[in-house]
């Protein structure tokens, strides 16, 4: 006999969603709206565009509520729908940028024996917090979509690695590569901005 698929979402909530209990659907909308908006903003959408895409995401979910099977959390489903809509919104606009430049940049920081040749400067080397926050947003914007999505879901939204894998439909190993590239891309970008900032201040 095949094993029963494991329910991850709360069974009574799952049932409520499937039968379209208005109160439960309303609660789902209310509970997930802020997270979805943040994720959409984090993906680089303007406030208005983010609201549009989030609205479409929740409407898609509500229209297909009967199909919800509880094998993933509601928010995992919602993020999945959201990211598909966002990548459609960006189609052709954003560069795909599937280069692996960053891997070489990281490699160059180590000697042949795997020791640091150019060690990192440490988190406090960048300047004041406000400025670093601004830089980080710029650096995030420069990351290829998948890397940025992986990083934001994991670090800002606090999803588990398993959940991020489900949302992005990638294996744990691929997620590792995405996170590795995202974090190092951001690190290098921030370091460059920090160095430049310091030189400017010296002038």
């Amino acid at each position, binding site marked *: 006999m095949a094993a029963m698929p494991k329910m991850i979402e709360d069974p009574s909530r799952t049932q409520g969603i499937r039968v379209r209990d208005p109160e439960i*659907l*309303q609660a789902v909308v209310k509970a997930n*709206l802020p997270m979805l908006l943040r994720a959409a903003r984090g993906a680089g959408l303007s406030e208005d565009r983010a609201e549009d895409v989030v*609205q479409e995401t929740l409407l898609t979910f509500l229209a297909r509520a009967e199909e919800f099977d509880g094998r993933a959390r509601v928010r995992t489903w919602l993020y999945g729908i959201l990211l598909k809509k966002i990548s459609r919104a960006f189609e052709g606009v954003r560069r795909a940028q599937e280069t692996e430049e960053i891997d070489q940049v990281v490699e160059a920081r180590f000697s042949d024996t795997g*020791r640091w040749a150019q*060690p990192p400067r440490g988190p406090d080397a960048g300047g004041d917090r406000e400025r670093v926050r601004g830089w980080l*947003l710029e650096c995030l914007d420069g990351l290829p979509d998948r890397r940025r999505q992986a990083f934001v879901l994991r670090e*800002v939204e606090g999803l588990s690695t398993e959940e991020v894998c489900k949302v992005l439909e990638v294996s744990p190993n691929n997620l590792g590569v995405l*996170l590795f590239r995202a974090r190092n891309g951001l*690190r290098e970008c921030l370091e460059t901005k920090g160095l430049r900032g310091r030189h400017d201040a010296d002038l």
Partner: protein
Amino acid sequence: MMPTCEEIARLLASEQLEQAGPVRRLLIRLHLLICDGCGRYARELEALGETARDALRVPLDPERLEALERTILERAAREDSGGTSGSAVAP
């Protein structure tokens, strides 16, 4: 073999430390205590997450949120009753 800085940086940034065995993990933890470069790298990764949370978790306007919630529920209700299928919720 002792873990190298490069290996440790890779495991930290990809969050795959658990894939190393228990002995290796212990060696890595020891290495992090004594290696300046790796320690700074680990702290930078942590700071990255913190800064991103700071920068992106901006408070949302509650009125705007409420308005958006209302719009979504109204549109959903309209699309429901507009459908011809019998699966729509009974009022």
